[in-house]
């Protein structure tokens, strides 16, 4: 692997070369087919990465999903089924309810993400922020409209505090965007803010939601006794065993 080569490519793509360096580079691009081929693939890979991870792509996908649901939802609602209810059907309905209830009670032994998703409310815009997207993100988050919250978070110029990243990550978990949530939460965990241990807790919940019990357990064990979520973590650990 040629380190110098790749560092050169990166500098060229970011326009961070001195004029004479750039001239040399471009001359080599013209004259050296192998170099050209390596560069072409490097540039294409960079564009693929950009498309895959840019917040704009995520916003597009969310928007597309919402419009698609709207469109297909409508067409399904066009044929409502009307069923007349007869007395004997009440009896059937009642016994189904009882069956369902029993089934539900039998299920409740296994802990689920939904048992723990009572998120704290977000209040981060009083601090003199003028950013409308940030205000939207906060409001959507508090009214549990997580898709919209994600879109708004991604419009915010910089999510530069652990607090903002923390709420963004919760919204991502709610919308099942686990890999992105993990990136954000891990970066909080590497810092030293008060959100450090909370991030571990949510990362564990994210694993729980994906039914990755093993991963969930090992994260829960990393939450120290002085953390706010320590008790909940212990409780969940017990339930998982």
């Amino acid at each position, binding site marked *: *692997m*040629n*380190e110098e*080569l*790749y*560092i050169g*490519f*990166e500098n060229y793509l970011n326009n961070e070369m001195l004029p004479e360096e750039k001239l040399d580079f471009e001359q080599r691009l013209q004259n050296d087919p192998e170099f050209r081929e*390596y560069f072409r*693939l*490097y540039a*294409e*890979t*960079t*564009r*693929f*990465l*950009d*498309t*895959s*991870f*840019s*917040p*704009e*792509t995520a*916003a*597009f*996908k969310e*928007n*597309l*999903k919402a*419009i*698609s649901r709207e*469109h*297909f939802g409508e*067409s*399904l609602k066009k044929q409502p089924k009307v069923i007349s209810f007869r007395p004997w059907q009440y009896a059937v309905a009642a016994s189904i309810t009882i069956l369902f209830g029993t089934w539900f009670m039998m299920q409740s032994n296994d802990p689920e993400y939904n048992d723990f998703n009572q998120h704290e409310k977000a209040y981060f815009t009083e601090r003199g922020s003028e950013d409308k997207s940030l205000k939207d993100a906060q409001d959507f988050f508090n009214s549990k409209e997580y898709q919209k919250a994600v879109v708004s978070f991604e419009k915010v*110029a*910089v999510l*530069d505090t652990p607090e903002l990243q923390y709420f963004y990550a919760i919204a991502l978990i709610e919308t099942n965007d686990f*890999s*992105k949530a993990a*990136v954000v939460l*891990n*970066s909080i965990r*590497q*810092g030293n803010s008060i959100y450090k241990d909370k991030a571990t807790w949510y990362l564990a919940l994210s694993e729980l939601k994906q039914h990755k019990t093993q991963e969930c357990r090992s994260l829960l064990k990393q939450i120290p006794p002085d953390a706010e979520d320590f008790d909940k973590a212990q409780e969940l650990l017990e339930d998982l065993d």
Partner: protein
Amino acid sequence: MTGKNLHSDQIYIDGLLQNNSDVIQTIYKRFVPKIKNHIRNNSGNDDDAQDIVQEVLIVIYNQARTNGLQLTCPFDAYFFLLCKRRWLNELKKRSHKEVTIPEHLVSIDEPVQGMVSRTEIFDEKQSLFDEMFQKLGEKCRELLQLSFVTKTMEEVAEKLNVSYGYVRKKKSLCTGQLTEMIRQSDRYKSFKN
């Protein structure tokens, strides 16, 4: 590609790229009903149609954003053929055998065919990139992901608690490693021809 005439339906491609809700809604109203019908008539339901349409629109968006997409044929024909072929593939996957859907459309224009096959090749490439990305080490994946989610490399450095110089260097090496893995894969060799 530059020599050919751009079709006026390029507005749909541009609208997708700009995440323009009006354009996306128009696509659903104008072009999707036909696809729904086609899928319903060929062993599918509305859920299938919803998935196929969404997947195809994402591929078109990705291609437009990554490599540029210049439409040289009507959007309707291009979009319909992409969905139809994707649905055919899905049916093959489900039944593990050859499936043929009767061809009512007689012949397909050569420009449409060309546009569709370029998009399908792009889609193949995208899945190769995705597959190879998953094979990178965790540190590389995290750093690359973060450096495209975050606006500047200074912020990435701050988030990872390392120096700017280090993330810059690491980003080039991780991208380089990814290109290396792609280059050495058999699938990549087949695209090059």
